[in-house]
């Protein structure tokens, strides 16, 4: 019997909120090499933002030991995956490192859009899937319905799906038995040429980049010179070991095993997820399949707010990039906002997370501009430009046509909400491809939609129309020509470049009006009238006016309560700090992100 027979490499896949992280925690507590009381700091307390949002952004990998009923001790390598559509590529690479997956379905909710998306990713990697029903401790659990949905929608046999509660620990033992039984052991040749998949990496200030890897063939140890097959770079291995979690050094890693490799690698970008590691002295002939360079789908400008130093922003962005290969940035200069950075993200959530980390971890005060997608601008000269900043759109007379990114959006919803979702999608230029009844009450809608329409507040609008029941999964499909124009905004007759957007020609008028109205609410009254105008080229298409205020005076000081008066003035001053000055006009910082949130339903 080979050592391989006692290894199981698996992931947990689930829709957001279905309890993946809780299950992972429970498994570690049950079987891990970590003491239960140390667990919180070691495993859970990784990123505040993730915990608050109930999603996992950064991957975790853990080696568990489980003594099964057959008397054998098994090494279970739990390879956690990010739980959001923005990180599909990372998910797929993590899955590629596994031989099976535990599919967690919330027994109170049933199958959701991302459940299906993740299952398909797992099937693409040829994984054996073990469905489990979670949240069985809740009264609202309906295991039979969930089982039926798994069978009807996914097509997996769920009759023996373990019923568990990750929260209380119920059914976990049964699930582990099943896991060992259903998920196959890894295969591979420990004496073959080294082929190891990078499925995650992070930067450690002492050890440099730590690579999480699954060894498919061969073996690797300290002192070996490894080569990244896609980037071609060589590094000397300084340490290998297992993730328990945390890093525990070992003599070597061999085929079938999961662990980490360090090699004085300075930046994450040099150890890209999906790349294949081999030995420089005896390289494999072919890399593992599936490598892709991270591609930014959404861009926005990040500028230091009033009083914040440009250098501080730069330092913070650099530090974030060290740990996040999918995030990129380059300097940008805006007439309105000064020097800042154009930043690229995998998607909206990725963007939110980075921006939130800037303020939380680095205590930075930044202004973010409207998110934008990347447009392909085909010039009359035949040249093709990629434009992600509306201000950089060339003179319309020189443009042959513009192409915008289209995504495939899958929306799963209870059938009651189909009508309002269809209206929403239609308003967002969505084209319905197909609609199917997954069960009597659950519908999947397939749309093709411009990414531009998805990135502002589509997800929020979807949730608010369906009381949170609808779920969304989307992925990039293709570029497609569209009639688009640049919509400029003028405040007090001065164009504010950071408020320019690219919009469909036919919607320009409505969008222009909407933005002007929104700005009218956001911009405080000044001592003079502030005209707000929307323009296409030289043509003004919408106009609003912020009326002048004439009064900002307290008639009375309350019986010598100077402190109260002072607090009011301090508040006023603090409010002003969050403003940005444009010529004579003061604009609150939120204007730049809020202005396009024009949910048509409100």
């Amino acid at each position: 019997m080979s050592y391989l027979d006692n290894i199981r490499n698996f992931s947990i896949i689930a829709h957001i909120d279905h309890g993946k992280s809780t299950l992972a925690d429970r498994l570690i507590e049950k079987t891990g090499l970590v003491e239960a009381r140390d667990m919180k700091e070691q495993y859970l307390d990784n990123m505040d933002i993730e915990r608050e949002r109930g999603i996992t952004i950064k991957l975790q990998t853990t080696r568990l030991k489980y003594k099964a009923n057959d008397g054998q001790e098994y090494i279970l390598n739990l390879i956690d995956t990010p739980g959001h559509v923005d990180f599909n590529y990372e998910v797929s690479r993590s899955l590629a490192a596994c031989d099976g997956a535990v599919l967690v379905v919330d027994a109170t909710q049933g199958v959701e859009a991302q459940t299906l998306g993740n299952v398909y990713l797992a099937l693409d990697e040829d994984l054996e899937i073990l469905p489990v029903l979670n949240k069985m401790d809740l009264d609202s659990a309906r295991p039979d319905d969930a089982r039926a949905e798994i069978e009807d929608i996914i097509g997996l046999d769920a009759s023996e799906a373990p019923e568990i509660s990750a929260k209380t620990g119920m059914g976990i033992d049964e699930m582990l038995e099943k896991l060992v039984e259903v998920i196959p052991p890894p295969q591979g040749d420990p004496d073959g040429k080294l082929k190891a998949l990078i499925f995650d990496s992070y930067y450690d200030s002492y050890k440099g980049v730590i690579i999480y890897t699954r060894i498919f063939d061969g073996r690797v140890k300290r002192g070996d010179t490894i080569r990244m097959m896609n980037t071609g770079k060589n590094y000397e291995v300084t340490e290998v070991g297992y993730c328990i979690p945390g890093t525990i050094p070992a003599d070597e890693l061999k085929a079938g095993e999961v662990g980490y490799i360090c090699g004085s690698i300075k930046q994450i970008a040099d150890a890209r997820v999906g790349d294949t590691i081999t030995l420089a002295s005896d390289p494999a002939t072919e890399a593992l399949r599936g490598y892709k360079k991270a591609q930014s789908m959404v861009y926005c400008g990040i500028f230091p707010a009033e009083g914040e130093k440009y250098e501080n922003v730069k330092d913070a962005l650099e530090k974030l990039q060290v740990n996040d290969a999918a995030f990129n940035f380059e300097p940008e200069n805006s007439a309105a906002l000064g020097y800042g950075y154009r930043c690229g993200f995998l998607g909206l959530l990725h963007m939110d997370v980075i921006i939130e980390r800037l303020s939380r971890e680095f205590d930075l005060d930044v202004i973010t501009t409207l998110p934008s997608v990347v447009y392909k601008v085909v010039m009359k000269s035949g040249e093709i430009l990629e434009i992600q900043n509306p201000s950089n759109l060339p003179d319309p007379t020189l443009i042959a046509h513009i192409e915008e990114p289209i995504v495939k959006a899958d929306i799963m919803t209870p059938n009651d909400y189909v009508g309002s979702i269809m209206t929403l999608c239609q308003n967002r230029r969505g084209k319905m491809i197909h609609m199917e009844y997954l069960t009597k009450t659950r519908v999947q809608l397939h749309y093709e939609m411009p990414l531009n329409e998805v990135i502002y507040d589509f997800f929020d609008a979807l949730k608010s129309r369906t009381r949170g029941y609808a779920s969304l999964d989307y992925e990039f499909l293709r570029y497609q020509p569209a009639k688009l124009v640049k919509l400029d905004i003028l405040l007090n007759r001065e164009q504010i470049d950071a408020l320019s957007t690219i919009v469909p020609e036919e919607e320009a008028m409505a969008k222009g009006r909407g933005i002007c109205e929104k700005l009218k609410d956001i911009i405080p009254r000044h001592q003079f009238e502030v005209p707000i105008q929307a323009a296409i080229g030289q043509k003004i298409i919408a106009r609003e006016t912020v009326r002048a205020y004439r009064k900002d005076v307290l008639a009375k000081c309350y019986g010598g309560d100077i402190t109260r008066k002072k607090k009011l003035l301090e508040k006023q001053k603090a409010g002003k700090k969050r403003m940005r000055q444009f010529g004579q006009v003061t604009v609150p910082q939120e204007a730049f992100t809020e202005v396009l949130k024009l949910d048509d339903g409100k």
Partner: protein
Amino acid sequence: MDKKRGIYIHMPFCVQKCNYCAFLSFKADGSPRKEYTDALEKEIKLRAALENEQGSKKIDTVYIGGGTPSVMDISTVSEMIKTLRRSFDIDEDAEFTLEANPATLGRKDGVMLAKLQAYKFMGINRLSMGVQSMDNDRLHFMGRIHTAENVARDMHFIRQKGFENVNLDLIFSVPGETAEDALSDLEKILALSPEHVSCYSLQIEEGTPFGDMAERGELVEVPDEEDRDTYHRICSRLKEAGYEHYEISNFARRSENDTDGRSVYRSRHNSLYWNMDEYIGIGLGASGFVNGVRYKNTSDLDEYFAAINEGRLPVAEEHVNTAFDNISEAVFTGLRRREGVSYEEAVSAYMKAHDAEDIDPQTDNDFRDFFWEVFSEAKPEAEAYAEKGLLIIDDTGLRLTKTGIDISNSIMSLFV
């Protein structure tokens, strides 16, 4: 020589609460008024004991405000004032103000005369009357209990009893009120020839009946433009009628006894607040500024009684002013005065604080330079206001222009 101090005493009881009122007050009926004045006396003694430890100072203004102090029983007020006089060294010619609301001085002529006589005996030499309007419909709408006729009658007896320093309050920009309405109110007030007039633009505050109405959309606030127009017309009219406009909302009648162009009828007590002078606050929710410390008493009546019964001061908040606090407050309170704030007084306030840098300014230029060193960040914006004609910055200090008053908060907020 050290400056003198003022004393403020709060009386949180009214016949009924007005629809716009966000001040601390309770319905007088059924409230523990006697217990309250007893407690005040104890607080006065506690404060005085503390004062004596710290070297007591002469008191040159006393202000009994509210609420409606005139609803308090004469016997208890009289006792309290006796205690006050025994406890503090009150100047013989101190300004001694009592706030009174029309129609609370007594229904019968005899009662009113006797009550006013009693106030005189107590040493009260200035009355401040909450007239607010001379239009009965508007008075009713505001929730006032009096009529224009009450005001005229009260004034008649007040004059008869020889009170020669009377303030009348006027509120304008009540929803539905035009500038003409306000000016007509003002004419009726001027006909009573008060020594002092306070004019307040109505502020609709959250948590008041007006605030609730505004939230439900049942109240349409007077547009800013109209409000400011009314205000400026009131200012002009008062000036024309011989009043000195000495603070944003306050006007004092000119007389032959004025010195340096300052009316003798300026409220000395309120001026304390605008001059960074010290005052002792006594009573529920009262604020004080003593020995460089700003404090505020509790606003909870039970807590207030509990503290007093335990023999401790009912202070809820206390803040030792820093040098920056001092200079900042000197600026924004000083800017309320028409003469503005001088660099010298602002920097002097700064120098009084415990944490002040050791500086020794001698000349006007020294004061000015140090002032702008402290407010270097605010300077460009202050200068921008000056260029727009809203603020005057000269070699000795700053002051608001008439139009600057309209947006005074924005200007003041530069200095906090």
